[in-house]
């Protein structure tokens, strides 16, 4: 009986050690938390193959864009001022020429995998804006949405 309990003690010591090590390792992962501001109205933006869902218009001022990619492919979200009907394309005719966009408060969220998301705080002046994904062919396959800020 005594011998058995002593053996159990050794075993539990070993298990405890293993558990402690595991906790430390996982804890390091958990300690990474997402940063973000907590002010302004939340605007939900959802992306999937191959469309972007967002409100047609929002009031001016600081808002928080809660962006979420439902996949299955990886997508970006770029917010750019829209002049005219369409954004300018690069020479390949397949992607938007980001260099030619108006450099006014552009919002660029790159490489969101399926199921991932983020929040971005923006303060957009009134006007027409285009939300789009600029991965090869995605813009032309329908991944864009016009947003009016009043």
């Amino acid at each position, binding site marked *: 009986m005594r011998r058995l309990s002593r*053996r159990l003690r*050794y075993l539990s*010591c*070993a298990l405890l*050690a*293993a558990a*402690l*090590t*595991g906790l430390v*390792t996982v804890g390091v992962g958990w300690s990474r938390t997402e940063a973000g501001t907590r002010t302004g109205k939340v605007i939900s933006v959802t992306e*999937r*193959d*191959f*469309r972007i869902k967002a409100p047609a218009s929002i009031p001016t001022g600081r808002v928080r864009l809660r962006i979420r990619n439902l*996949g*299955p*492919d*990886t997508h970006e979200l770029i917010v750019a001022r829209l002049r005219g009907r369409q954004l300018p394309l690069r020479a390949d*005719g*397949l992607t938007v020429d980001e260099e030619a966009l108006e450099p006014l408060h552009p919002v660029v969220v790159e490489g969101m*995998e*399926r*199921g991932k998301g983020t929040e971005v705080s923006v303060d957009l002046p009134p006007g027409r804006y285009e939300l789009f994904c600029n*991965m*090869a*062919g*995605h813009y*032309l*396959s*329908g991944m864009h949405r016009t947003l009016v800020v009043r």
Partner: protein
Amino acid sequence: MRLQRSVTFRPLETRGRRVIGAILVTFALVSALSITLSLRAIGRSRHQAAVVQVAARQRTLAERYVNEVLLAHGGRRADPATTARLLAQSADVLLDGGEAPAVNGDDDETTLPPTSGETARLQLQQARRLVHDLTAAGSAYLGHRPVASVPLTAHERITATDPVQRLRILAAVTSNVSLDAARTIATRADRNVGRVVTIQIVLGVAGLFASLLLSLGLIAVTRRQTAHFRSLITSSTDLVLVFGREGCRYVSESVGKMLGCPPSEMLGSGFERFVAADDLAGLRAATEQGTPSRVLFRLRNRFDEWRNLEANVTDLRGDRQVHGVVLNARDVTERVRLEEELTRQAFHDGLTGLANRALFRDRLDHALAQSARSRDSLAVLLVDLDGFKQVNDSLGHDAGDQLLRDVAGRFAAVTRPGDTLARLGGDEFAVLLEGANEPMAKNIARRLLTSLSAPVEIADRSLRLSASIGIVTGRVGADSDDLIRDADLAMYAAKEAGRGRFEVFRHEMARELGELLGLEHELRQGLELGQFALYYQPLVDLESNAIVGAEALVRWHSPTRGLVLAERFISVTETTGLIMELGAFVLREACRQITAWQAAGTLPEGFVTWVNVSGRQVSAGGLDNLVERELSRARVDPALLGLEVTETAVVMEGAAGDRARRELRSLYELGVHIAVDDFGTGFSSLGHLRQFPVDVLKIDRSFVQGVEHDPKDAAITANLTSLAHALGLVALAEGIESQSQRAAVQELGCDHAQGYLFAHAMTGVELARLLAGDDAGLEAASA
């Protein structure tokens, strides 16, 4: 059975082994888990690399397909259908597994497993739909059908209407989605590898931690066991020594304690300087060869004491832990001493250190055997001290013991070195003279007697001793029992013949002894049958020649022996206890006689009848009651009775002595007269006499007999007389046999006298007649 048990393998028998086992099992488990995980991770990575390669290839194929469609549409040679098929096949294989086709022979056919992971599968499904849309659009374009009307299955919403633009958008999306899937798969593989690495780290750390804990446990167990054994060794009184090739390698603390020297000084050859020289060779052999298994040796410690050690020798030279011969030694000094003492005690007399009866018998047996071979003669002397019992009774046993030691020393001084001197018990000594004939034995006996001539000083007293010696010489066929018995008879004969002398054994002695043994029975019978009678010897005043008293003397009218005087049987009655009855008889008879004399009116004024009281009667107690009873029974005035006691009663020690003196004092106060008999031969001192109730000192006849010609005897008599007078006592000289003696003692101051010169002992009737007559009657009686 026992052998079987000893060879049974029991790996978990001790705690240390169990801990080591636990460490090994932990390592094995952790290692097995780690290796399995690694192998699985490697296998999966290899598959996933192939998947990524095939997925990435789809991009190339999609672009090639568009170019081939455009070429074919322009009438150039191209095979877009094959590329479309490769695209579709690859998309299927990527999703569901199977054999991926080779493209242009620049890569081999690859077998892929079905892709796992939800995102990757969703992406691959999307890629397959896009491939379908792309090839459908291509087919429509080549078939000159409107491309914009081809239905899209992957949710793409292409607004461009130009067919080439549409094709290029579809190809771009297809290649993008395929690459995305490839990246997802690669990322997943990376994540898997990362997870494996994490698990490996966790396992490694956990294993390390567990091993550390178990090792600590092992150290604790080992330390506890080591401490256990160390404390066993250090607290043990057993001495542990380990010897190697270089000499002593380890000694336990107990060795240091015993030798009074730090253990470090005993290492190497340092130990040997403590070992007795005689034992060194044996000890060296044991420590160098590991045999014999037990060795005895002596050590001398710092305090110059010799210690005896008994060691068990264990040869552990083959043992890797010890590499030496181990001695487990015990200090057996006390045991050895005890054994030697017991041996000595078994054969020696504890009081005198002489040989005892057992050793004497042993020596005598050997000597007899020796003389039977060599025809050498031998002699046995048996020595018995005279009057030793009196010393013991009067001065106590301590004085008696001291006397025996003194006598033993004197005897040892006069015997030859080869002779065996023994104390057989009590006051009996024996000497074995090997190679001695009768004249030589007599010579030794004389020397023994002479050695006693000087007085022995004991308890502030000077005692004069004598001894009776029986001699027997060896003869053919006699055994030791015979010789000792015969020597005893001869000794007895010497005692009978007057003590202070020796007798050589004669065969007639045996018969005489037999007579003596019969004496007691006859005496007892004689007492019952009234064969004893009292005779009275007058005591005379030297000045007036008047009869002032008489000493009652008991005699035995034996039907077989005739008239026997008291000296012949008193000692026998004393040793047998018959003296008590005889004493009572004498008192009763004396009182009866006094009454008779009184009735006849023959007793002169102040006449005292003296009765002898044995020392044994005095020490037994109850003398006062006995005397008072007899006096009152006979209605005799106590002043008419006198008791003669020996010096023994005067000086007797202890409670018995106190009681005896108390009883005598009570009789004295009653009026009974007390005389000290044979004064001068015992050991009484002036101090004793002063405290003792006494009227008369009777000076022993041994002094009186030489008083007329021996100045020493005369001086003693004069001294005793003046001592008596100084104490207010009457001095009486015993044994006066001639006129010159009478004149001498009268000259020296004696008051009264007794002896043949005046009158022999006579019956009561005769004495009455004498008393009734005049002095002439006395003169006539003494003539």
